[in-house]
């Protein structure tokens, strides 16, 4: 017997459940399972963004030996 026609493959089970019924996507277990993913991907995003954020902050921060020695500003 051949496999039945599958139609579109982009359908996801949580999407097909109506709003009134229980949504597996927001259950406590699901949140607990997803937390490591959020921490991991959030950490990665911080690693990628940190150098740029640090540069942007340093460019306006007061620092001896630069054109911005007193208070925050656009001296540099």
């Amino acid at each position, binding site marked *: 017997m051949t496999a039945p026609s599958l139609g579109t493959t982009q359908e996801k089970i949580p999407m097909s459940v109506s709003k009134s019924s229980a949504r597996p996507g927001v259950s406590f277990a699901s949140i607990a399972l997803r937390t490591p993913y959020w921490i991991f991907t959030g950490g990665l*995003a911080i690693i*990628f963004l940190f*150098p740029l954020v640090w540069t942007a902050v340093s460019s306006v921060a007061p620092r001896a030996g630069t054109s911005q020695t007193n208070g925050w500003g656009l001296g540099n």
Partner: protein
Amino acid sequence: MTVLLPTSRSGRRSKSASSSRRDAVKGWLYATPTTVFVVLLFLIPLFLVIRMSLSRWPLLTGNQGFNAPDNYTKVIHNRFFADSIVFTVKYTVLATVLLIALGLGLALLVQESSRWKGLLRASFLIPSALGLASASLLFYVLYSPLVGPAAGLMNKLGLSFLGTPSAALYSTTFLIVWRFAGFYMLLMLVGLQGIPADIFEAARVDGASRWQTFRRITLPLLRPTLALTTILCVTGSLLAFEQFYILTKGGPDNSTITVVQLMYIVAFQGQNDLGAAAALSVIVLAALILINVLQLRAFRNPDER
């Protein structure tokens, strides 16, 4: 009628001949801009470099005549030649493995669309908008034991990002991974999205696990993308220059001199010998051609062999 037939045939023949000539001229006209670019920007410089590598060619006095194969023997006997090749290969392997693995991993992490994944994609891609020299300067300050964000910690623990040969290699590799991971993620994403979703669905229906799907479907169908990314990464890493020139200047202890940096040193620092530098670049070009041919063969579809 019998007289007219040959005339009309010859007329048709001459018409088709003139039309094919017109097509040929049109073809040449279409090809001319590309041909001019290839000749001006590739063939002439290549010819000049080969000629330079076969001549005595000091930086300040210019061509002093044919001296082959002196430049090749001189460059092979250079005291940094073997070390620079070993270091460049080591760096290439490290950068390629990390970039391909991370690029694929990030692409798998963010391939579905949601707001959070869109944010992640943007975060990973933003460093790619920076020039390599600018990124190198940024990391030069980040790694600084005087003004970097980790300066206090570094002084307390006695750590240094660029102070030892291995630390300098890993720190520079980190910069490259940070700068290029988003770009390779993008290439992998394009490859992943080119795989028909029906195949994944069929595998799921057949009861394949995630690992089996990745191993038996994703990886084989990603072969062309993996070939492209590997070739780009290996070629780019073998030609590494800016990051080491800015971050380490070949140090500490001449331990991070790459082949291209050696070319620069031979051509513009100390020896000022363009002939020897050209000989080294011809050797690198030959090695690159060989490596790329081998990679293309390795990544060729088994059905095409």
